[in-house]
């Protein structure tokens, strides 16, 4: 489909130029979904009628000159942990199988105000807990590059939908790499902004102190344009930060001369796939050729990031997910005697095994007598990791490394060994602990043709440096469409 192969901003430009209407754009996306969903499984809910009727309204406003932004009329897919008023929001969990929110998440609201059209809700690991999108209660999403492989996770549905060209761009959320890792696996670009940049209001929380919403798209320009729309101070989110500068697209300049790029040696040790290593090193060389100053350094503490992350994220999750109890909404067990049994059965039947594992882990580390040994220690580790990054950013503008140690694993290969799966988050997790912005963008493919992702990490509130480096690198490559995109 011609229209779906365009980037979001190019499609938006053509809509503004009246070459394409919003209805045509949305219809193209809906057609693509119809043809490809069986193979991809990127969506939990497709809002065909709602999208078409909104497209009509938006087109009206575009013609009236009321909507002039780059995303007006452009179809977007939204991860299913972002509340959408009147549209089912499940977190890919049985416990929320029928939940219809009464309000829309701030980030989605901002997109809609800019004229973007939500066409559906994308699949994910249940409550964003997982790295493969296989823990979804509604079945896995497949990688558009090879459907025997996972798309990564937890924003696997969003990344696969972009890679398969079922939507022009998508929103994901990133708690420990949930945007960057699946972007890497699916050969698309995704940003995890600085904590506090995008309002979390309406994002169904997993790990509140780590969660950030971010864009997934075909290229850096799209990501910067979307971020410009969704970012902003929101009084409804107390952790939201009023930033001085939200003009991210200004950073789309092909110039990295003098930019100091540090490569942490710790990121290239054991467990890193040699093909990934080679591709990432090659990307660093490319940036050096373009004038960046590239050198290796020791970041240290990386090995402590994973245990610290799982303690903090699970602790918060155990409390965040307590509200899903069968009382007010969502799944309630069919038979029970008394309140206690209703809680127990609803939650036992409603949550999947990975979610239960993390709730138990989180409850354990918070329980009296263990709090200091686990939770407090994890918080201290988090502070030390932040310090290590602060030190690194005293010397470098950007930290460069892989987004994941391997390319996308085969379906079914990960869940059997959760520890191994957790270790796959090694390059992304520290970024969340330190609240930093990170971007993943394609930098090659392995022998089997699966995409490899390059991760760039910036200091807090330095998205513009990040975007500049990513944009400059991107100019040296051609965007590669997945086999399912071409279908």
């Amino acid at each position: 489909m011609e229209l779906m192969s365009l980037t979001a901003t190019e499609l938006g430009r053509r809509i503004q130029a009246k070459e394409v209407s919003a209805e045509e754009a949305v219809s193209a996306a809906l057609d693509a979904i119809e043809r490809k969903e069986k193979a991809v499984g990127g969506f939990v809910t497709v809002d065909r009628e709602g999208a078409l009727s909104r497209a009509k309204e938006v087109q009206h406003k575009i013609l009236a000159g009321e909507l002039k932004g780059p995303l007006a009329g452009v179809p977007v897919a939204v991860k299913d942990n972002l509340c959408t008023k009147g549209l089912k929001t499940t977190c890919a969990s049985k416990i929320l199988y029928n939940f219809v929110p009464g309000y829309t998440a701030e980030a989605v609201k901002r997109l809609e105000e800019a004229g973007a059209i939500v066409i559906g809700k994308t699949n994910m690991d249940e409550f964003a807990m997982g790295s493969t999108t296989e823990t979804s209660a509604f079945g896995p999403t497949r990688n558009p590059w090879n459907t025997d492989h996972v798309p990564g996770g937890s924003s696997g549905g969003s990344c696969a939908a972009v890679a398969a060209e079922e939507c022009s761009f998508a929103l994901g959320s990133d708690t420990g790499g949930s945007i960057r890792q699946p972007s890497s696996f699916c050969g698309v670009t995704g940003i995890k902004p600085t904590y506090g940049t995008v309002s979390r209001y309406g994002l169904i929380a997993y790990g509140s102190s780590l969660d950030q919403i971010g864009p997934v798209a075909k290229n850096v320009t799209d990501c910067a344009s979307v971020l410009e729309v969704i970012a902003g101070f929101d009084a409804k989110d107390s952790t939201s930060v009023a930033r001085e500068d939200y003009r991210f697209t200004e950073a789309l300049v092909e110039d990295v001369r003098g930019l100091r790029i540090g490569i942490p040696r710790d990121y290239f040790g054991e467990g890193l796939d040699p093909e990934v290593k080679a591709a990432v090193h090659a990307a660093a060389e490319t940036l050096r050729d373009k004038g960046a100053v590239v050198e290796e350094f020791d970041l240290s503490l990386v090995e402590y990031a994973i245990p610290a992350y799982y303690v903090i994220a699970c602790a918060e999750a155990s409390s965040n997910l307590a509200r899903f109890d069968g009382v007010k909404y969502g799944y309630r067990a069919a038979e029970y005697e008394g309140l206690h049994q209703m809680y127990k059965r609803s939650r036992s039947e409603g949550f999947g095994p990975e979610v239960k594992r993390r709730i138990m882990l989180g409850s354990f580390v918070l329980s009296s007598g263990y709090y200091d040994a686990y939770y407090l220690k994890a918080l201290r580790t988090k502070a030390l990791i932040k310090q290590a990054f602060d030190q690194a950013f005293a010397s470098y503008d950007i930290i460069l490394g892989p987004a994941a140690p391997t390319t996308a694993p085969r379906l079914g290969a990960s869940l059997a060994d959760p520890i191994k799966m957790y270790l796959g988050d090694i390059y992304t997790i520290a970024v969340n602990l330190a609240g930093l912005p990170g971007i993943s963008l394609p930098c090659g493919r392995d022998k089997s043709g699966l995409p490899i992702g390059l991760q760039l990490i910036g200091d807090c509130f330095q998205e513009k440096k990040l975007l500049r480096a990513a944009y400059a690198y991107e100019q040296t490559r051609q965007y590669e469409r997945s086999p399912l995109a071409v279908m």
Partner: protein
Amino acid sequence: MQKIYETVIGLEVHVELATKTKIFCGCSTEFGGAPNSHTCPVCTGMPGSLPVLNKKVVEYAMAVGLATGCTITQYCKFDRKNYFYPDNPQNYQISQLYLPICRDGGVEIETSAGKKTVRIHEIHMEEDAGKLVHDEWEDVSIVDYNRSGVPLIEIVSEPDMRSAEEVIAYLEKLRLTIQYLGASDCKLNEGSMRADVNLSVREAGTEVFGTRTEMKNLNSFKAIARAIEGERQRQIELLEEGKPVIQETRRWDDNKEYSYAMRSKEDAQDYRYFPEPDLVPVVISDEWIAEVKAREPEMREEKLLRYQEEFGLPEYDAKILTGDKSFADLFEAATALCGKPKKVSNWIMVETIRLLKDNGMAPDQLRMSPVNLAKLVTLADSGTVTNTVAKEVFELVFKEDIDPEQYVKDRGLATVSDDDALRAAAEQAIRDNPKSVQDYRNGKEKAIGFLVGQTMKAMGGKANPGMVNQILRELL
């Protein structure tokens, strides 16, 4: 030999703050309202909703802390207290454990045993829960989240009290302080002030504390006093029988005057407290503290002195007037209008308190406006109406807040000082009561009283008694 026991009591007092909106959302805190009409995604714990702290809550908590000599925690945080119950929509309560807003204060109380200080361990901010309604007919439970998210402070005392009298004095002191600050109306019967009593007994002279129990569901000062006595007796009996007191939470049933064990320490819940990640730390600057301190209204002690100095009221009267904020407010406003502090004070001290008592009302249920009280005082003081009429009209001011000037005018209740009318009535009284006239003329001075009464009666109570007296003497 009989042992002597000492009772050791500490209180946890919950006070609902008088903010217009809830602690973490913009919903109204107004009482009543159809179930779940004062709710939003935040206070019903909807997925994805986030709390935003109401600054006014912090200010009220600070004000109470400053008025009770606490140190303000200038970097304070909220924590989550995790427990499952349907009145708690998120299944956690946002409260403060590690860094409560106020610490290390105390208030001075006065009892028959003299003055002493009850230390305050801490004051923390938290959210209230919703209300469960059990419909036994339908065999279902329904939840009303209107109260969910209403701001509370919990004032935790040290175990410094030794008797019910001290407990009541402490509570009265807290209530007055908080009412004067305007931070809460502190109504025990409506639940805007709730006290949990931690009580243990020990042999007099011992240093170590006995095992304590916590009693809940105490809705009045009387219930608190009864519960303390009951629990004291229960614990002493256990000890006398050589049985241990079990650390547990007990529920007081004021009708049966007995407490029931709710849960023991063994099955006490682990609340898995941890810092609330959805809220940022509350940073309180020196300037903010100074601002709140500067806004502190005149407190009871200051008023007590001022009433004596400025208005020349006796200490006893000043104590009663300042003993309830409603009295003090009414007194000051009415005095400002009519300029007669002693008269206003008398009307409050005598007639108002009598009518409150007769009607089983609390001072804060007063409906009478200062304007109408001031008018009535003026009418009575200037002799425009007689004392009898004034008392009658006052009852209406008290009950319906009528305008007494208008009322007196409409009904023609003003005292009659018209010489001719009075003279006619007096002459009639003399004609009708020859016996009394005879008695008076025979030197029975008292007999004139009867004639005055008869004249007044004939005038419908509106006659100027001084004039009637004078006219009668003239005629006789």
